[in-house]
């Protein structure tokens, strides 16, 4: 079998089992191309570059020497806070400031999907942020309660009042 990137014989064979169809995706490369893509570590360590492996399996299969230039989609984004360009981030691998996550959000989402198979945080939230949410929720409920009272929907207003009391009584630390 030939390497999918050059005319050499393929000696490295990767198979990815995916749930959707096609069930199996195969990549075949020669040793040189595999090394170029960081799939084989230089030293004899048990460490395989997982990111490179995933990148190859998840990314579109494109020989590097293909005739037409590869249209690499690097969005022309710049962070207004720190001035970092998205392409700079792609070259260096490090973001410049917290606001980059806002400025580059659209470009970061697919990247995070590839790295983490997820785009949304599920875990600890700073207490200050939690308090902020709670206050916003309470404000919203109070507004609704007033509206219900004004519309003489007293049953609904009473339900909301109880809900507000309950929320206000709960410990705000967690």
């Amino acid at each position, binding site marked *: 079998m030939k390497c999918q990137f050059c005319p050499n014989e393929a000696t490295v064979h990767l198979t990815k089992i995916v749930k959707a169809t096609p069930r199996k995706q195969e990549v075949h490369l020669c040793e040189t191309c595999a090394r170029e893509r960081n799939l084989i570590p230089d030293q004899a360590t048990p460490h395989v570059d997982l990111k490179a492996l995933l990148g190859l399996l998840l990314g579109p299969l494109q020989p590097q020497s293909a005739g037409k230039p590869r249209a690499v989609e690097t969005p022309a984004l710049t962070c207004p806070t720190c001035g970092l360009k998205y392409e700079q981030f792609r070259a260096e691998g490090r*973001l410049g400031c917290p606001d980059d996550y806002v400025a580059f959000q659209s470009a970061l989402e697919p990247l995070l999907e590839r790295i*983490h198979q*997820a785009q949304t945080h*599920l*875990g600890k939230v700073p*207490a200050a942020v939690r308090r902020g949410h709670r206050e916003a929720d309470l404000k919203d409920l109070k507004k609704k309660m007033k509206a219900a009272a004004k519309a003489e929907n007293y049953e609904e207003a009473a339900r909301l009042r109880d809900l507000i009391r309950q929320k206000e009584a709960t410990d705000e630390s967690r």
Partner: protein
Amino acid sequence: MNLDSLLPNLGEWLRGSGPESDVVVSTRIRLARNIVNFPFTNRAGHKQKAEILAKAQEALVHADLPDPLQFIEVTNLTALDRQFLVERQLISRELATVLDGPRGAAFDAKESVSVMVNEEDHLRLQVLRSGFALDEAWQDIDRLDDALEVKLTYAFHPQFGYVTACPTNVGTGLRGSVMLHLPALGITKQIDKVFRALQKINLAVRGLHGEGSRAFGDLYQISNQVTLGKSEPKILNEIREVIQTILQYERQARAALLKERRQDEQNRVARAIGTLSSATMITSEETMELLSAVRLGIHLKLLDDLPPTTVNQLFIHTQAAHLQKLMGQPLDGEERNAARAKYLKSKLRELGSSR
């Protein structure tokens, strides 16, 4: 602060006790955190780094914690002291030598909690525990994180969670690592199979000193790669399940060694002790390999009365910076190999005569 006071102690991670300590050396959890209104460290200027350091120092020194933290500025330390802290796993090699500008570290007297300032992220919180103790380590670091958050405002994105300089850490910012001693899987040549399986499920395997370091003395760190989209307890549970499986494999391999080639093993352990106690020059790598055999010998009960903490003591004291501190003078590579051999010889003789 005189770091030499730490020298006689083993530090939390080498205490040699804790759950499953026949295989699990230590458990470590780290959290990456950044402070609002500052660029990440790599794009921060000298003045901004100094400001971040001052804010962090204020928070670290005054945080409401069960054990107070001692704060040090890395730039005030000698190269030897920095290396010393790296060997004790309290700071990273990057913070010690690669990065520049104002940066700091704080740790408690037990050397269980440490915080690096102006590493890749503004703050890198770490908790070390002896043995397999993911829950305890998480409780400690969660509390430390809460205590610091009272004093500092963390950069947090409603969708992405705790933001970090590198997107591989975003979300929880959590990396859980368990350090395992896996000599029997090495001897029976099953270790590569285990690692291939781990990589398929997104867990990383590294050597003693983290990313890019080689595995010496059959010590491996297993850690999560994914930090986004899973809660902290879920991430830790996934590590726990895998470690439990590896524990079983290692213990099975050890039982098989005892059953099938007990004499070979006894010979290997005896030779290791022999070399350690009679060499006149020895490298750190060879010491680690031989100590690995001794450690296994202790747990297989092929050696009488040598406590596991001895191995840990020899292990830490024979590393370059520790050795130079013990000898009280700077030593070059050759001198270190001679000093290391001398230290091992006298320590093992001391233990032999007390037995």
